[in-house]
């Protein structure tokens, strides 16, 4: 179901103010009430004047669409060549620039597009000075009325009538004859192609009666409504004829412009719709019909097939309401930008609030869930960090204890080297004593250092204080720790050396012995007692027993 909004359409003329209450949907308008208020003659219309009437009818604090007098608006139709690359918006803006330069101010404008054939692009520009919008806006503001739109009267007349009277391919003239001005729009089919207004209306007929009969203006106005007629033989026909000619002359000058702009046959007036307060002047439709050479229709009040039952004087109000729909014949609005922004904003506000609300909720849910997820992850990581910290501490303690153990092992290394010499020598001595043969005489058992360093046991000489040791420092001293080999020297009368070999075999069996063999002959130490071999008739031998170091 289409949403309807309640709108009041305000048409303030020089003679009366008319308001129609309408329920406006997306594509339709339903007029529910119409009210008019006779304005004091010759006075500026203010809200103070209208307030009691509007308050009484509940029009204050409403949303409204207001008419702008057609004489305050410039209507400029123009045609764009088919190859024109500009958009309609750009073309309209460039056209308005010319007016801006002439007026030295930024004009308010809008346009409607129409086409009279294939590849035909035309625009109808409606241009107004911004200052001319101040009066209706100020009036609305004084009544706390929210202005939904400002529509020029000729556009409103067209929008109010085209739905009922627009015929496909027909050129129709829509006229709204007011008290002091007349608005007109010309439509081809459902397209508005021309609009204009001129300052001549029913007042010229009132003045004609007043002049001919000598009545005051107010009485002449009443006489016009009571007995005014252009039909020959009626009391005021002679007086009204020149006035009608004058009014038509104004209308005709507008039509002349139209014809100059649209010279083709399709732009020939096929019929006219006459509305407004002056439409009720007896004989005027016939007069106009005769002048135009085309049929003239005056919508009747209460006729559902004509203007949907709206009296002719409320056509503008109806057209104003129609202008808010998407099916308006000509969607032209002269509403200032700021008000238009506010209206659009008001329209979209619920959607934006809803969208923003949903976005905020989504964002909030995402952020909260993301944050909670991060917190959960952080808690897990904190727990893991604490675990890793404890493990690192335990690992450090293990490392520290291991280092202490390693230190003891490192301290034990030089001690182990020092301590092994005594059991090595004792075992070697015992093994030699037990296994030497009867033919052997063991002359020397010593460690290799003692064997090769003849000055090791020289009294008064300290090998540990030698120059070499002092230069080399502590490390060099520690290299001397421990026996590397044991030398066993002696003589044997067994020329086959079998017993010596047997002794070597026994020595090799010792656990700490790495190897045992005869020392090279050139390594033998010189004998202090001369050539003992000949004297003893024996062979000298020296066994080197290498001690396992690890």
């Amino acid at each position: 179901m289409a949403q309807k909004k309640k709108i009041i359409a305000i048409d303030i003329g020089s003679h009366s103010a008319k308001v129609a209450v309408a329920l406006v949907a997306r594509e339709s308008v339903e007029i529910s009430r119409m009210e008019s208020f006779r304005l004091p003659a010759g006075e500026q219309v203010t809200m103070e004047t209208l307030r009691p009437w509007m308050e009484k009818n509940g029009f204050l604090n409403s949303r409204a669409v207001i008419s702008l007098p057609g004489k305050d608006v410039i209507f400029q139709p123009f045609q764009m060549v088919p190859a024109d690359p500009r958009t309609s918006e750009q073309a309209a803006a460039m056209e308005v620039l010319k007016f801006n330069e002439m007026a030295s101010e930024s004009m308010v404008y809008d346009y409607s597009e129409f086409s009279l054939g294939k590849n035909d692009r035309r625009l109808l520009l409606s241009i107004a000075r911004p200052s001319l919008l101040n009066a209706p806006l100020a009036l609305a503001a004084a009544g706390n009325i929210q202005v939904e739109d400002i529509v020029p009267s000729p556009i409103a007349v067209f929008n109010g009538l085209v739905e009922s009277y627009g015929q496909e391919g027909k050129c129709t003239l829509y006229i709204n004859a007011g008290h002091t001005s007349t608005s007109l729009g010309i439509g081809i089919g459902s397209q508005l192609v021309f609009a204009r207004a001129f300052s001549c209306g029913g007042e010229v007929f009132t003045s004609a009666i007043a002049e001919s009969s000598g009545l005051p203006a107010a009485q002449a106005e009443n006489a016009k409504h009571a007995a005014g007629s252009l039909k020959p033989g009626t009391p005021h026909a002679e007086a009204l004829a020149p006035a009608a000619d004058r009014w038509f002359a104004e209308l005709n000058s507008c039509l002349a412009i139209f014809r100059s702009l649209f010279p083709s046959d399709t732009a020939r007036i096929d019929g006219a719709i006459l509305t407004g307060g002056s439409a009720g002047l007896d004989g005027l439709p016939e007069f106009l019909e005769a002048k135009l050479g085309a049929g003239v229709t005056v919508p009747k009040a209460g006729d559902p097939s004509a203007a949907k039952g709206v009296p002719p004087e409320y056509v503008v109000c109806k057209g104003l309401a129609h202008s808010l729909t998407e099916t308006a014949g000509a969607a032209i609005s002269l509403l200032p930008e700021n008000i238009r922004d506010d209206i659009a904003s008001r329209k979209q506000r619920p959607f934006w609030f809803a969208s923003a609300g949903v976005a905020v909720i989504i964002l909030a849910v995402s952020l909260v869930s993301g944050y909670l997820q991060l917190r959960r992850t952080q808690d897990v990581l904190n727990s893991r960090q604490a675990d890793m910290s404890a493990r690192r501490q335990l690992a450090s303690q293990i490392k520290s204890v291991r280092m202490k153990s390693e230190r003891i092992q490192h301290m034990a290394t030089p001690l182990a080297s020092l301590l092994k010499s005594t059991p090595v020598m004792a075992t070697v001595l015992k093994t030699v004593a037990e296994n030497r043969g009867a033919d052997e005489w063991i002359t020397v058992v010593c460690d290799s250092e003692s064997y090769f360093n003849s000055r090791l046991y020289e009294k008064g000489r300290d090998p540990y204080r030698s120059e070499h040791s002092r230069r080399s420092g502590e490390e060099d001293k520690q290299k001397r720790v421990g026996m590397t080999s044991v030398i066993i020297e002696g003589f044997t009368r067994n020329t086959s050396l079998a017993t010596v070999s047997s002794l070597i075999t026994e020595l090799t069996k010792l656990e700490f012995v790495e190897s045992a063999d005869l020392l090279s002959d050139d390594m033998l130490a010189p004998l202090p007692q001369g050539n003992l071999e000949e004297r003893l008739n024996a062979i000298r031998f020296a066994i080197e027993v290498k001690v396992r170091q690890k």
Partner: protein
Amino acid sequence: MSRRQNDSFGVSASRVAVIFILISGVIAGLWIGLLAPANNQRKQALANIKATETELAKMGLLLDQNSLRRELNKEIGYNSDLLIEWSNTVGRLNGFRDLPNISAERIGKIDYKVALFDVKQRLLKKARALNIDLTSDIGMDAVVKSSEDARRLMYQLKAIETLLDTALDMKIDTVKFVEPLSPNGYHPENSTEIFVEEYPVRIRMYGDLDSLYDLLSSALVRENFLVLRNLKVRSVSEAKPDLLDISAVMSSLLFIKSPETMDTIKNAIAPVRISPRGH
């Protein structure tokens, strides 16, 4: 189409821009104020965990807490066993355990001279009683020069006393001469901090093989512990095959530091020298 329709769309765009900027601001604010710090904390925590894992892996200890505790207890037990073993070893090897008074920092020259006299008299008396030919010079000079350290002399005297006492007890025939050599200091393989001092003594004596066995066996006994550094045993003559000319360098050990009092390996980079004491 008219400008009215276009403009309503344009208005929406501007409103959208404002709302978008506001929401973006809120998102940015929440991100900067809430999520980014939390995310940074997460990254930092991950980096810390990774670094710790790498560190543990390098140490070969990327294990759970229970396993690490078991490993720690095992290492503590092993270390404790090593300390006990070390303590027992030091107790057995220390050649100066019965001289606590001379391990003090302050040892005067007078202390050394009195001790030298007492030791010499006692050893000569003992040698005479055992009918062993002991040289009257036990290798230690009563003259103390300004360059000499009384503490060192005292320890050298004690080392000679231990060696001669042991030799006399083993009924060595003759002590030809005895003299102290320069002390040595020993440090662990990966440190320069000295933890044990060696006081070597050179001796030449005559005796038989049994006496030598006894001497070597006795050197392994706790009370007379001596380290054999060098030994040369020679037969004196073919006519006297049992008489041996024995030359040896034997040492007493003084443990000056325990594993607990050693500096950590890391800190013990600079060599530690023992300065002369009592001078």
